[in-house]
């Protein structure tokens, strides 16, 4: 059975490709993302309130390391093989090292539909994964120049809308706990999938807008946009297995690794690495990798996780 939220994505994509005038107002898109980010944060925070934070530290460190590693793998591929300019390679690498909240949300729905449990603190790992790749991307583009205003960069990265809402939601969920949050559940949890459906409708429209540039940038980008998430998913799945996550959690870490940012990173790169062409990275992350992950990747990465657990043993 195909999840209706995927159908909403296809509806948006199809309508836009047929040049329908359908669009969601930008402020509504904004509003829907705010609700999604807070929901995900709250969910994670509630779970954090139930377990000792210390126990998560190893996972946090390991995932941070992965966040530093992935863009370092992607960069030479883009720069050498793809012959992209240094700045462009760095920026694209940063997008792929970071994560996509939309993809995560679709994965939550996917596992939820199949009653596959996963560690509820994954939103925390999502937050953790947002940041390192951005720093790596900046350093790859600029070097460790003294001219870099690191204060500004840190501000840009940690106080961007996405991270503030995720961390804010986490903290609120953590402090208020399950009972506290109960009163706001009808908005943030019961409507979650409906909100996600509308969000994906607009994502489909935005994805269609990248198709034009896709043709322009050619096959290498297309290949990269599919191969890179596959590679990252394997890394994420293996790491998840090593960390002792459940099958669901392992799949989730694979999905996070495979996803490419199109909110936090584009904004940060635009300011910190201005000479990188944003069309290039958005075409890859939004035009190729997002639909690939949503339509094909998520079930695939879940299969990876099942394999890993049955092969290596739970």
């Amino acid at each position, binding site marked *: 059975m195909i999840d209706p939220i995927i159908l909403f994505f296809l509806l948006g994509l199809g309508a836009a490709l047929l040049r329908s005038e359908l669009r969601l107002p*930008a402020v509504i898109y904004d509003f829907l993302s705010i609700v999604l980010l807070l929901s995900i944060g709250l969910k994670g925070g509630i779970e954090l309130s139930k377990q000792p934070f210390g126990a998560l530290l190893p996972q946090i460190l390991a995932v941070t390391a992965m966040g530093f590693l992935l863009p370092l793998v992607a960069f030479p591929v883009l720069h050498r093989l793809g012959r992209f300019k240094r700045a462009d390679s760095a920026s694209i690498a940063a997008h792929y090292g970071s994560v996509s909240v939309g993809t995560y949300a679709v994965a939550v729905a996917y596992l939820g539909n199949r009653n596959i449990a996963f560690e509820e603190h994954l939103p925390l790992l999502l937050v953790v994964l947002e940041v390192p790749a951005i720093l790596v991307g900046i350093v790859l583009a600029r070097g460790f120049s003294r001219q870099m205003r690191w204060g500004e960069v840190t501000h840009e990265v940690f106080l961007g809308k996405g991270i503030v809402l995720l961390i804010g939601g986490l903290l609120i969920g953590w402090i208020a706990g399950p009972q506290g949050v109960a009163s706001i559940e009808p908005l943030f949890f019961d409507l979650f999938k409906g909100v996600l459906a509308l969000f994906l409708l607009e994502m489909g429209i*935005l994805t269609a*807008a990248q198709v034009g540039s896709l043709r322009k940038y050619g096959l290498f980008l297309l290949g990269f946009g599919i191969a890179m998430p596959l590679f990252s998913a394997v890394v994420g799945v293996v790491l998840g297995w090593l960390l002792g996550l459940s099958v669901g959690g392992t799949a989730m870490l694979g999905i996070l690794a495979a996803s490419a940012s199109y909110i936090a990173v584009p904004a940060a790169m635009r300011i910190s690495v*201005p000479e990188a062409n944003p069309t290039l990275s958005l075409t890859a992350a939004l035009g190729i990798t997002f639909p690939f992950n949503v339509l094909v990747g998520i079930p695939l990465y879940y299969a990876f996780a099942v394999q890993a657990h049955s092969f290596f043993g739970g």
Partner: protein
Amino acid sequence: MVTHARKLLTIITEAALEGVLVRDIERLGAHGYTITDARGKGRRGVRSAGWDASSNIRIEILCDQETASEIAAHCRKKYYDNYAMTLFLVDVGVMRPEKF
């Protein structure tokens, strides 16, 4: 009605620049500015304002010739090459010259 000649500098650029640009403008001596949200098309293609990454803003700055030149030169140097940006200047008349 007596009006005094001033310049209106209009900058159309990416919404992502709003924060830094406003700081630059004030540092370079403008006493105020007005911003409206916009969409459009130029050499960097269609910017349809469907979401943050493709939104434009339109900044208007009333000032004297000199400040306008300085801001324009600064923008040209710092942003032209890497951002969607269009600038133009118009002669305007204002009533309270001391304000601008």
